């Protein structure tokens, strides 16, 4: 089982969190919140955005045809889109058929409990109109959140 990276995008198309794991032997290596404004985040967002629009057009009007996974030859992207416009994305190897439960846990047990319940943390990471529509730079720095993500996903990395 291998997870390569974890990303969160907010309702303003901004990447508000990323965590990449690199070394298989050392799960604490890799980077956190370093790729928010790099092309990778934007391209990942763009890919999901496009495929999501198409899948919704293919679905009928009364049922939501929400995108769940995208597979390439080496990667699988697992996606959870909430009604409030948050996207949780995990990149894994191809052996992971379905990580939707993992994503749901990340949302309901980690994000909600450490970011949403935390009144000192913003829930809207764009403070001005200029930071909307993918132009933002703020990110989740909350230590509880970082710790919880590490504890939960760390063991699954290798």
């Amino acid at each position, binding site marked *: 089982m291998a997870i390569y990276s974890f990303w969160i995008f907010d*309702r303003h198309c901004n990447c508000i969190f990323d965590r990449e794991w690199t070394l298989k032997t050392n799960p604490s290596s890799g980077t956190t919140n370093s790729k928010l404004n790099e092309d990778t985040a934007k391209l990942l967002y763009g890919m999901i955005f496009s495929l999501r629009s198409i899948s919704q057009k293919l679905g009928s009007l*009364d049922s939501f045809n*929400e995108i769940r996974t995208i597979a390439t030859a080496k990667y699988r992207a697992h996606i959870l889109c909430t009604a*409030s416009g948050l996207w949780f994305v995990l990149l894994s190897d191809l052996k992971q058929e379905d990580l939707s*439960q993992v994503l*749901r846990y990340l949302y309901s047990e980690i*994000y909600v409990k450490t970011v949403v*319940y935390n009144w000192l943390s913003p829930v809207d990471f764009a403070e001005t109109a200029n930071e909307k529509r*993918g132009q933002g730079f703020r990110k989740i720095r909350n230590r509880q959140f970082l710790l919880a993500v590490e504890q939960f996903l760390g063991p699954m990395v290798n």
Partner: protein
Amino acid sequence: MSASTNSVPNSSTGSKKSLKAFSDDIWKNKTAKINAELFTLTYGSIVSQLCTDYERDFVKVNNQLFLMGYNIGMRLIEDFLARTALPRCESLAKTSEVVSKCAFKIFLNVTPQVGNWSSSQDAFSLFLDENPLSDFVELPMDAAKELWYSNILCGVLKGALEMVQMDCDVFFTSDVLKGDQTTELRVKLNRVLKDEIPAGED
């Protein structure tokens, strides 16, 4: 479709019963309970403190309660979605059902009646037969005219609906505390907001 939509009742067939069962289950198994009297009294002391702070200017108190609710609603929606995993509603009728049978049930354990639809189907009312916020409450003479005691609920709904891209006006039109027959909370949909798209994509 999200993975958990399987457990979510379908809107077209038998939704009333299954949405109720679905909400009952969440209320029973996924909701931390607190003492209702403690909750009522805590809210009461907040309102009473606000009345003192604003020197009994009840319009300001209403606004402040609304604002407090708005900030709560913006966060509460994530809690709600995390528990229910519901997708966006396809119609306002569905929204009204989810709000009354699911949201009110989960957070306050009451189920207001939905009614009084406008002719253009863009506004409805929630009739709060029971209101846990206002148990034991009697408004003083000077407050009875202007104060909307439970105005925090309007703010919560406004904030929560806005986060799922529904721009609504939410306000009380009557309250039993003021001597009215019913407690009626009106929700009027102004427009459905568009999801943002990245700059340069349009």
